Each structure stands twice: as C-alpha cells, then as structure tokens.
C-alpha cells in the first residue's frame, strides 16, 4: 500500500519510502516503492509506465521501412543495435541476402555503440556512488564515438542507419582511419578507467558482496546481458545464435561467477576490451561491394511470424513480428532486456541496506525508455 510521495509507516515498524519518479539515481522516470525496516530493505517494488509511448502499437501503423526508426527510441544508448534487430527481422521475413560489406559495417557499428553505451554506464555508475569525475572521462571518449557516428550516419544518438537489406549510406571515407585512431586511444584510456574506479577501495567495498543474484535466480527472472553473465549464466546471443558475421570473429564471452555488483561491473569492463578486439579484426577487412541489397520500394512480409534476437549493450533484445502479408506489421512485440533485468532488483536488494540500493541499481544499467517502451 502506498500513496504518492509520502513516507508511511505501518504497524510492523516498516517504513515505505518512494524513490522517484524523479530521482537522480534512477536515470529516468522510474518509481521505486521501497519498504524498509530500519535501514534494511524488505521489499522493492518498481512502478512503471511513466514514459510509456506505446511504441509497439505505433509500429503497427508504420511500414517495414519506417518502424525501424521507432526502435531507436527504446534503448537510446544502443539505438544502432535495436535498429539492427529490426532490420534482421524484416530480412528474415523477406529472405534478403545482406551483402558482406553491409554486415561488416553493421557489426563494427554495433560494437562501437556497445563501447559508447558501456562508457556512459561506467560514468553514471561511478556518479551514483558519489564519484563525479569519471563521468567526464567517460564522456571524453564517448564523444569520439559519437563524432564517428555523426560523420557516417548523420546523427549522434538515434542513428537510423539500418535499412532492410543493409545500411543506408556507405561509410564515410575517413571512417576506417578514425575508428583505428579511436581504438588506439581507447586502449590506453580503458586502463585509466581501471586505475580510477576499479581499483578504488571505496568502490570495491561498496560493490563487493552487495546485490547478490544467484545463477538460478538470474535464469528464473529471465535476466540477460551483463546481469546474467555476472552470475555465471552463459547468454551472449552473439556467441550462442550468431547473426551477421559474429560467427567469423574471435572473441570471448565474458563470464563472472560471483553474482554481486562488482561481478556485473567487471563483466562490462571486460566486455569493452572484447568489443575492441572485434573491431580490430574487422576494420581492416571490410570487403568491397554493395552496402545495400536491392530491395523493392514497398516491402511486404509474407504471412507468418518472425523472431530475431540480438545482443544489445544491456542484454537480449527480441523482435517478434506477426505479419498478415500487408505492408505494415499486424503485431510487433519487443522483448527488451531492461524489463527483465529490473524484475530481479527486488531479489538483489532484499536484505541489503538502502545505501547499497543505488550501487545495485547502477550495475543493472537501466534505461527507462527501454523498460516502458
């Protein structure tokens, strides 16, 4: 039982505190209703829906070329990967063969997006714990990526670079050079990140052993991405169900087994290095050729349903299209990683102290528009 923005105490000495909908640590309009006994958390109840824009319903009135842009507005930090998932679903339905060049470009862009997203998370997570400077360091490098994106895709955040059958335009002539420069720079900077935050004693004490999620719980809550991998669940879609050219590149799936906040933190930190590895393998070998397959101006998916999934920076994103054979989808469902990851928050935070809640939430890497859609 709760009423808005009130602190209620009930008969069992329990205190109900509202965090949000506007709270700096929730990174968006997330409303948490926390039941406390003293400082110990008894229950965390997320209340959703503050930025529900009914993207799924909107997509039903958009054509198969148009609906891709709407998915950038879900998880805006990995907008490019969302677009990729949608494009893959349409391609699966139409059975379009994507040219090699487009596949290479797509994967390089995906990994750049992943690095950018993890960097923002790193800065924001440190800020949740009271360290303000890391945010600037993270944004300094992230800015380089957004510049690369801006040059090739034309936008910094909502790229909309994917079209069914490939990518919208060919890469900018400077693209390869800039990416290589960035990779060189980033490799030294990521050591700085470790120096600044990972080794820091205050940070370690606040994250180690906090927000524990067991392997069994991670599976039963449907967690994916770094949250599940921090608990030792192998769930990297890039490895398990490779799409585009992920089966041709060599990289490791990062697994940590501790299941605490620090494990989830380490998964993401190590994932950034893996992304660098993937980009290094691809950037010099982009094959010549078309960047887009020849497609009709109006796309019509055959009757049936199509499901594709990709690994975004937050976990598994599934796109499910039901088609009746028309130019617009009959129904679209997005399986967003943030929603399932958030559902495990109660399990992680229960029994812990309220001060640790923010640290735990930081490691979930929540993007609220992704949860509400």
């Amino acid at each position: 039982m709760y009423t808005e923005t009130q602190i209620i105490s009930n008969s069992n000495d329990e205190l109900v505190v509202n965090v949000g909908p506007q709270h700096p640590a929730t990174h968006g309009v997330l409303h948490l209703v926390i039941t406390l006994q003293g400082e110990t958390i008894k229950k965390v109840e997320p209340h959703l829906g503050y930025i529900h824009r009914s993207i799924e319903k909107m997509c039903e009135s958009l054509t198969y070329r148009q609906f891709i842009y709407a998915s950038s507005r879900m998880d805006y930090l990995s907008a490019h990967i969302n677009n990729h998932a949608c494009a893959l679903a349409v391609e699966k339905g139409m059975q379009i063969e994507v040219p090699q060049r487009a596949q290479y470009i797509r994967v390089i862009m995906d990994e750049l997006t992943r690095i950018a997203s993890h960097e923002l998370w790193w800065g924001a997570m440190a800020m949740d714990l009271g360290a303000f400077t890391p945010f600037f360091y993270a944004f300094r490098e992230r800015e380089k990526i957004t510049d690369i994106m801006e040059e090739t895709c034309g936008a910094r955040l909502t790229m909309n670079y994917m079209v069914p059958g490939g990518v919208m335009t060919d890469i900018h002539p400077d693209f390869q050079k800039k990416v290589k420069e960035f990779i060189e720079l980033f490799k030294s900077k990521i050591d700085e990140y470790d120096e600044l935050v990972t080794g820091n004693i205050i940070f370690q004490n606040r994250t180690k052993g906090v927000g524990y999620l067991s392997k069994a719980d991670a599976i039963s809550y449907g967690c994916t991405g770094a949250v599940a991998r921090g608990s030792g669940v192998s769930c990297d879609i890039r490895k398990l169900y490779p799409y585009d050219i992920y089966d041709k590149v060599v990289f490791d799936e990062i697994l940590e087994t501790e299941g605490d906040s620090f494990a989830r933190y380490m998964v993401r930190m190590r994932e950034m290095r893996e992304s660098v590895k993937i980009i290094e393998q691809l950037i010099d070998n982009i094959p010549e050729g078309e960047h887009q397959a020849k497609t009709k101006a109006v796309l019509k998916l055959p009757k049936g349903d199509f499901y594709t999934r990709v690994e975004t920076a937050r976990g598994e994103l599934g796109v499910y299209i039901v088609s009746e054979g028309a130019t617009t989808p009959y129904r679209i469902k997005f399986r967003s990683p943030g929603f399932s990851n958030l559902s495990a928050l109660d399990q992680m935070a229960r029994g812990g102290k309220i001060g640790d809640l923010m640290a735990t939430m930081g490691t979930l890497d929540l993007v609220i528009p992704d949860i509400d859609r």
Partner: protein
Amino acid sequence: MFIKEYITEIAKATKSLWTGMRLTGHYFIRLKTVITEQYPDNRDTLKMAERFRGEVTMPHDENNQHACTGCTACELACPNATIKVITKFELTPENKKKKALDTFVYHLDMCTLCGLCVDACPTGAIQMGQNFEHSVYDRSTLTKKLNKPGSKIREGVE
C-alpha cells in the same frame, strides 16, 4: 597477525586512493587535454559533419530551379506525416497536362530527422541541412515552405 593484516589493508586502501588522485592530478595540470567546446562562442568556426541531419532542405540552383517532380514519394516514406506535397497540373508545350510541385510543406516541429524522405526521393530534390539551431519563439514559424517563391523544376528532371 591481525595487526599486520589491518595495517596492510590500510596501506593498500590509501594507495588505491592515491592512484586515482594521481590521474586526476595528471589532467589537472595539463590544460592541453581540456576538450570542452565553448559552444555559443565558437559558432563561427563550428563545422558540423557533412552528413549531419539537422533539417530537410530543398536546394535551388542559381536560376531558382529545384529538382522536385511532386511525386510524393517522400511524403509516403515519412513516418510522422511531416511532409505535405501539394501538386498542381501544368501544361507542357505539347499541350499535355503534367503534374508539378505547387507547395512543399515541411513541419519541422514534427520531424524526427530520420532521413527516410531523403533516401526515398528519386531525383535527389531534398537534402538534409546542417543547421541545428531551430529554437524559435513562435511555433508556427516551424512550418516551412521549402520551394522558393517563383521557383520551377529544373529542365530534364523527370
């Protein structure tokens, strides 16, 4: 034993804090590493990327001619109904009726700058412009007419 562990722990903790501080100090004394852009002051030198999507524009050449045939492909491609292409019929020299552009209405306030219209245009009549300073006092000024008054379609564009 306990005392020894306790002291090592403190020494380690202090060292880890100093490592972080050293990095901060490193940047603090090196002004060259500052990357802040002084935005409103650097407007003269600020150059946006060539492909940057700031607004939809319709380039006209020196004879006040554009390349839009009024085919409405961009209108159909737009997910937000941002574009309204109003067409009229013109008489060709052979006395045949031909569709031509009358007014190209563009609602900047509804545009998500996705670039789908530019991608769909068969004649390359519209382009994305680099201007990103769109704030105005009156919302109605964001509804624009993109073809200039008195402009005509360039010859040879079908």
